[in-house]
């Protein structure tokens, strides 16, 4: 029998009292105006149950501390609308840490109650969107503040769980197309991810976004990055966020094969043309070439050469400079609408 859950607030009352008296409330959880008090007052409308590492002797199944599915969903919406989507809370790295931790606690409650099916999916979907958006938004932040590998580990777990729900549940799941697409783009080039898509029912595989994602995956595996970068133009913002971490790989591979393919003494490849192929401004293209040791002469011609190509030094490649292909898709979208999936 799964444990009962009776906590009707985002944070169990007992935990709120404990953390308040121990001065362990997050600044997002205190009554406004009391932040500078010696013991800030906890706001029950803003406090959210935190993630706690499982330990021997700790009883995590107390009903008064467990939040049922409807409260969990309300919690997730609060985290998206009032925290992640807030325009006044800064810096976003702090916002991310808070939401990351509180979502992890939501996941804990879900696991303890052995939630499955539609309840699970409703919570996992915005969670996945949050982590995918974050993987783009926090690109380039120092490691001690944001570690992309940790974000990745958790995102993969959420994706895996979500796909299991789709597979074993009775549905219908109207967003399945969206998430299978995001999953494939995030895990571009991965055989297991592609194989999972291939095993989906025909009607799903024939949807426009999955066909596009499969075409991008195919182009990636065939080494046809010119075609790939063209297809990327058709992605929407969140899809581009999912693919974002592979952009460096794609552009690197293109430069590498061109160094081999155009290797000759008289090579004079027009910079503008290369810029178009890489979906970058010409000035940025020249910078990127420099990072990889490829010479660009004063007539804006690229001198590809096998021996010139070198791997960039650690930290010399700032992805943020080169990911306008993603950022320009954001246009007027708010963070709130992105994570709720109303793009």
């Amino acid at each position: 029998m799964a444990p009962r859950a009776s906590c009707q607030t985002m944070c169990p009352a007992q935990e709120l009292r404990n953390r308040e008296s121990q001065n362990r409330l997050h600044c997002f959880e205190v009554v406004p105006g009391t932040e500078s008090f010696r013991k800030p007052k906890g706001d029950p409308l803003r406090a959210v149950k935190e993630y706690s590492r499982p330990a021997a002797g700790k009883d995590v199944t107390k009903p008064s501390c467990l939040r049922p599915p409807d409260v969990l969903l309300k919690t997730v919406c609060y985290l998206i609308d009032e925290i992640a989507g807030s325009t006044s809370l800064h810096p976003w790295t702090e916002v991310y840490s808070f939401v990351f931790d509180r979502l992890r606690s939501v996941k804990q409650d879900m696991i303890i109650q052995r939630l499955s099916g539609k309840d699970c999916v409703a919570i996992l979907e915005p969670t996945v969107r949050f982590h995918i958006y974050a993987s783009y938004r926090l690109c380039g932040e120092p490691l001690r503040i944001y570690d992309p590998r940790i974000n990745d580990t958790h995102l993969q777990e959420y994706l895996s769980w979500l796909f299991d729900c789709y597979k074993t549940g009775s549905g219908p799941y109207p967003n399945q197309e969206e998430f299978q697409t995001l999953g494939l783009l995030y895990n571009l080039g991965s055989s297991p991810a592609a194989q999972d898509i291939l095993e989906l029912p025909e009607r799903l595989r024939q949807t426009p976004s999955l066909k596009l994602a499969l075409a991008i995956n195919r182009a990636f595996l065939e080494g046809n990055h010119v075609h790939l970068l063209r297809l990327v133009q058709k992605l929407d913002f969140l899809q581009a966020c999912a693919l974002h971490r592979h952009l460096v790989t794609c552009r690197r591979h293109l430069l590498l094969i061109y160094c081999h393919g155009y290797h000759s003494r008289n090579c004079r490849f027009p910079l503008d043309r290369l810029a178009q192929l890489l979906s970058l401004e010409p000035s940025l293209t020249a910078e990127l070439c420099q990072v990889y040791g490829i010479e660009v002469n004063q007539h804006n011609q690229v001198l590809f050469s096998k021996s010139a190509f070198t791997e960039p030094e650690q930290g010399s490649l700032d992805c943020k400079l080169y990911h306008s292909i993603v950022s320009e898709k954001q246009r007027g979208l708010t963070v709130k609408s992105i994570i709720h999936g109303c793009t």
Partner: protein
Amino acid sequence: MAHITINQYLQQINQAIENHEGSFCAELLSFKHPHVANPRLQLASPEEKCQQILEPPYDEMVAAHLRCTYAVANHDFVEAYKFQTLVVQSFLRAFQSHKEENWALPVMSAVTLDLRIFANNAEQQLQKKGKGQPGEMLEKAAEQLMSCFRVCASDNRAGIDDSKKWGMMFLSNQLFKIYFKINKLHLCKPLIRAIDSSNLKNEYSPAQKVTYKYYVGRKAMFDSDFKTAEELLSFAFDRCHRSSQKNKRMILIYLLPVKMLLGHMPTHQLLRKYDLIQFADVTKAVSEGNLLLLNEALSKHETFFIRCGIFLILEKLKIITYRNLFKKVYLLLKTHQLPLDAFLVALRMMQVEDVDIDEVQCLLANLIYMGHIKGYISHQHQKLVVSKQNPFPPLSSVS
């Protein structure tokens, strides 16, 4: 066997254990043996009887086995799996206490095989009711098998004839079957390493070696190590017994794509012999450089290729197909300075959608980078300039 009483059965097992008759004991505990259909043995509470005649932990082991026959008779595979787990656990306790002897290896084979089979059946039963996570029971079964594997692998004291290490390959093969089914191929690695470093590596039975190399070959395919995959799968195919048409066909399903990637196309004869005509169009398309036919062939037999898990590998043949198509252009034009337009025309003839001169250059650059073409592209002259010597090296020399 189908008529003996419970007492006779227990006496027989007890004797087999005392006389170290591994094979006979295995039969008495195997679901392939007719005794499991004997209603006199299908008892709901055989513990007392077993305790009267057998020493621990054999009493628990046999009691669990009999409970299992009861469950199977009632078609309850979830229960059956539960009891088979107890059988394996009790067996392992006994097995570990056998110092420097391995007479019980046949028993181990029988009970672990049944464990895996029941895990499969139990999962199917649960799926039908919409319960249980796929792969959950198989993973638990795998953990048990791994415990057995560790006992075998760590048997360093016994002489070769009495070593438990002889059980390693059988268990590996069982574990491979599970790991492939639940799609956790990375778990195969420690097994492969253990077998590779064991001195018995080449001494196991031919049948076991064929199965072993089949799975390790498939893993190599998955890791894109095609040369190794070819060696292993070829061995498996050649040594697989002539009479096992079905097994030979299964091996071929994986060997063919690997050989094609290395430039070796199968004959139509071979495909007909093993009922693998699905590969015929793929083969034809790749050797002719016919991208259109390749896409059609992949699409036509998509379901089959996806089910076997080779669809993605066959898509890799596209690069080989481009190479073959471009080689044709070279042979047709008979010059070492080939206009890029010629390749564009060739691709358009193959109804490759949306392709333009930029993509042609990218495809050519990739083939040059991979070593399939020796030459360079001149952007100024819009030409591919190929080496006068062997501009399209043979496929087997490249990958």
